[in-house]
């Protein structure tokens, strides 16, 4: 690894450390204040906003660290991964939002269910694709995850009144109606694909969104 890259990683990690302590101070003080017995409804609302935004900043911070790590190529090991197992593990994490939106999730694969790649990166990539498919979905919508030797495809229904923005895979582009969404998910996907040297594409049809990763 070049010296500049090493410096950039060190810088990102130092920055992350420096931000986490003040975030912890803000969160702790909000939690302490919340213990006061005489809080009015409005006071609680302000505290709730502070706490929500601490969480948002924390997630943003984590995503930026992740992007910087990928940008600086620190993922080198390749292994044979059981793709279906990985998908089901990830879907498990999303059980609750999937249930609350009553999404119909289907998973299909070709002959093989193994893929050679870096497990960490593949997991982050799939997590982000599936997370997007869940978040930007509609009630009673659909998600279809498909895997074969040539491609990974994640298809989902979306709100036709609020279609994905044109440049939606650029950093910090998030749909206006989803406050709290960071707009980093797809740029992480894009960066991982560049890193693994695989093609990715997004297709928006009349009522379906398709994210495709060519293997």
């Amino acid at each position, binding site marked *: 690894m070049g010296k500049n890259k090493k410096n950039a990683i060190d810088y990102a990690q130092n920055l992350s450390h420096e931000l986490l*302590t003040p975030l912890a101070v803000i*969160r*702790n003080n909000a*939690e*302490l204040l*919340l213990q006061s017995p005489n809080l009015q409804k409005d006071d609680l609302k302000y505290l709730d906003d502070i706490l929500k935004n601490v969480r948002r900043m924390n997630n943003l911070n984590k995503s930026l660290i992740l992007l910087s790590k990928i940008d600086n190529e620190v993922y080198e090991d390749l292994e044979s991964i059981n793709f279906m197992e990985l998908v089901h593990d990830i879907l498990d*994490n999303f059980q*609750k*939002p999937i249930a609350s939106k009553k999404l119909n999730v289907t998973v299909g694969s070709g002959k093989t269910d193994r893929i050679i790649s870096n497990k960490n990166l593949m997991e982050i990539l799939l997590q982000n694709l599936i997370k997007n498919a869940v978040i930007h979905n509609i009630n009673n919508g659909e998600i279809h995850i498909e895997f074969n030797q040539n491609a990974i495809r994640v298809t989902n229904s979306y709100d036709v009144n609020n279609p994905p923005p044109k440049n939606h895979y650029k950093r910090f582009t998030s749909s206006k109606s989803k406050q709290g969404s960071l707009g980093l998910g797809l740029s992480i996907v894009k960066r991982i694909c560049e890193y693994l040297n695989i093609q990715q594409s997004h297709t928006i049809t009349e009522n379906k969104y398709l994210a495709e990763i060519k293997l």
Partner: protein
Amino acid sequence: MKLLIVEDDRDLLKSMLLYFNESGYNCENAKSIQEVNDRISDHQYDCVVLDLSLPDGNSLSTISNIKNRQAECGIIIVSANSNLDDKILGLDLGADDYLTKPFHLSELNARIKSIIRRKKQAGSSIIQFNEISINTDAKEVKIADQIVKLTKKEYDLLLYFIYNKNKVITKTSISEHLWGDFMDFSDSADSVYSHLKNLKKKLAQAGSEDYIESLYGVGYILKDK
């Protein structure tokens, strides 16, 4: 219960001391490895909350020192680094748990209580809260000798409330406790609400009083009446 809180950031330390003193612990603090070593040679603690990066170095090295002097003392690492290697190393050296910043005070409190319980009450695995009795080995909840059938999430939720009784706990902290901070969904609050609703219903059906109150959806409190 005696705690040693090790943290070099003064504001963070202040907030932790305030919270844990109010929670009934007897707290002392240290801001450097040197101070930790001094403290543990003079005093006995039930648990040490240990920040990893201190002005005079990485405090992983003090873990074995604490263990040698006070085998019964629990150690929970609180670190700004989510690096997996540090976590594995810390646990290998004898720490009991690991939490990354920014943590929730209620989460830290629940973890400290769980560690102290494991260390002190070898043999007894029952937590009693009024008529509610929890067997932490069997993960079983009883009210008046009747088993209350809870899902894993409902069980975790109840235990989290009882560890933090009489304290307001935030929706975010509950959501992160149950699902991890990966669930950065706006609808995770609804999930908390629906699990809580089911839990309250099951407890009420088994004849338990309703101890859990909502604070306009910002947080909840389990009150010992």
